[in-house]
């Protein structure tokens, strides 16, 4: 009977297509939208994971997320260095500064100032130049995406491509000259602003004159030092906040979850995908059953049990579900692949497969249930009706 069920399903090409399309759509939306969501949320803390090396980030107690800079006095650095269990502690400046481009326009950039001697917290990948080149006068390292896009020089001709800045080219940061000495690859951040690395002292000279300019103190714990204990100790001794790298990432992520419309927007997309997919697939599947109701009636009259008919319908639903799910997930993967070098945020952890799989299963179960109820209630005597 299973073979008959499958033949019945495939026999009705139009409906079969409709059901599979509906499910494909639903599974695409339910996978792709969350993938973008996860991608975006990952970007909120990508700066922290890019810095990598330090175990603990120390900052003002009121900081809510990584871009929420509340500067400290430079003396805090020495206080942290004095705490037992600290292997080393380095200053970091992080702030938004305006860069003046050659055509006179301004671009806000994320400027990161690294400890002058160790240069700890530098970019994860260097594409050209070396981090040490920051020690050259006015040296800055700029991320490649910024060079290609936001910081690119407009071309001379009207429709020409913008010209990418090169090592040796200069920018103006707050009226100070800065010379590109290196090109880095950084993970895109949420705001996708150009990222410029320089030394801590030079960053201070670029930044508007203020009493406090220290954004973070980056701490490496001594070997075998328990990180939770150490961050507690730092908090107690300084009155500042101290988070492990993971805690700081979570803090940032939670901030975006709670304080932006992003989760709800994506939630709505996913829900809509689910509802529209369920409506299309559910309805087409139910219609398919209705259209074949006489065939089910004939099978019933000839002695097929409700149990067997139920299995036939479930099999039909499972088949279209699997195909639709496979196509939706495949399209999502393809989408992610096609978009891999663009600004689009996209992440496809395996949990998403489970998520959309559950969604598609729910839709199929719903569709099958309607049909099953219909067929079980069916009176076999309809077979003689005209």
């Amino acid at each position, binding site marked *: *009977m299973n*073979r*008959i069920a499958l*033949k*019945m399903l*495939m*026999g*009705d090409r139009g409906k079969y297509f409709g059901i599979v399309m509906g499910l494909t759509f639903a599974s695409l939306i339910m996978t792709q939208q969350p993938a973008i969501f996860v991608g975006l949320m990952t970007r909120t803390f990508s700066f922290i994971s890019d810095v990598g090396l330090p175990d603990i980030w120390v900052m003002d107690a009121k900081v809510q997320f990584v871009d929420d800079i509340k500067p400290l006095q430079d003396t805090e650095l020495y206080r942290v260095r004095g705490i037992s269990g600290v292997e080393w502690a380095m200053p970091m400046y992080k702030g938004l500064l305006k860069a003046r481009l050659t055509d006179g326009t301004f671009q806000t950039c994320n400027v990161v100032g690294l400890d002058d001697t160790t240069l700890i917290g530098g970019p994860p990948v260097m594409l050209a130049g070396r981090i040490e080149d920051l020690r050259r006068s006015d040296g800055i390292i700029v991320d490649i995406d910024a060079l290609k896009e936001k910081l690119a020089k407009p071309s001379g001709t009207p429709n020409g491509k913008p010209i990418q800045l090169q090592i040796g080219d200069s920018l103006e940061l707050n009226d100070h000259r800065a010379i590109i000495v290196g090109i880095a690859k950084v993970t895109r951040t949420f705001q996708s602003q150009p990222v410029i690395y320089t030394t801590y002292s030079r960053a201070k000279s670029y930044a508007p004159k203020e009493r406090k300019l220290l954004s973070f103190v980056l701490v490496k714990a001594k070997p075998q030092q328990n990180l939770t204990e150490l961050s507690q100790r730092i908090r107690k001794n300084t009155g500042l906040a101290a988070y492990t790298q993971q805690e700081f990432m979570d803090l940032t992520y939670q901030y975006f979850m709670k304080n932006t419309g992003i989760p709800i927007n994506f939630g709505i997309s996913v829900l809509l995908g689910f509802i529209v997919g369920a409506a299309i697939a559910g309805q087409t599947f139910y219609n398919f059953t209705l259209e074949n109701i*006489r*065939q089910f009636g*004939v*099978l*019933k*009259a*000839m*002695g*097929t*049990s409700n149990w067997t008919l139920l299995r036939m319908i479930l099999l039909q639903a499972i088949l279209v579900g699997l195909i639709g799910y496979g196509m939706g997930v495949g399209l999502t993967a393809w989408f992610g692949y096609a978009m891999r070098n663009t600004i689009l945020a996209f992440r496809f952890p395996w949990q998403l497969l489970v998520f959309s799989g559950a969604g598609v299963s729910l839709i199929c179960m719903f569709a099958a249930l309607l049909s099953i109820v219909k067929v079980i209630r069916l*009176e*076999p*005597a309809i*077979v*003689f*009706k*005209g």
Partner: protein
Amino acid sequence: MSAIAVHCQNLVKIYATGNQKVTALNGINLDIAQGELMMLVGPSGCGKTTLISVIAGILDQDDGVCELFGQNILKMRSAEKLKFRAQNIGFVFQAFNLLPALNAMENVSVPLIINGVRRQTAERQAAAVLEQVGLGERRKSLPAELSGGQQQRVAIARALVHSPRLIVCDEPTSALDHESGRNVMTLLKDVALHKDRTLVIVTHDARIFEFADRMAKMDDGHIVNVSGSKPLHEAL
């Protein structure tokens, strides 16, 4: 000497739609012998279809007794009833009711598959029966590729393949031209009917009355008279 295949006594069936009640069967008394071809005739709406539905065990009467081969279907549990139908009854419909996605051979094998026969065996038997109805060559054809007469012959093969003891046919020739109708009737009479198999055929197609062993005339939920070449006592 053959036995009674179908025994109907005081059969009553009332359809209730909303607050309207239609008495489709109003005390039917009818016995059909094994191995005979019984035709049910009468004007449209007189209850013919309702009667064979009850006889075939796909509709429950409201009152009276209907026994098939001495068994009261109404008293059976639903699983038993299904098994009884699957083994003992073949169906032929006015609209053929073949499964459009299955080819002729697959369609014919369905009753065997319902009875738990393995697919290969079922299809082999189905092909043999298709030979018998003259469609051996067309066993791979889909219903849509066959003429109405051919489809009805496939349907007859399907009604036969599991060697049921009773075949019920509702207006089997109404959708066919005269020639195909006669072919179908010849087939039913020559191939389907034999001493262990009873045919009950509902029709109002006067051109095929001659194929009947006996004919029960119905009107308004009653059997008005039973006539035929062989009266029941002779048939028995």
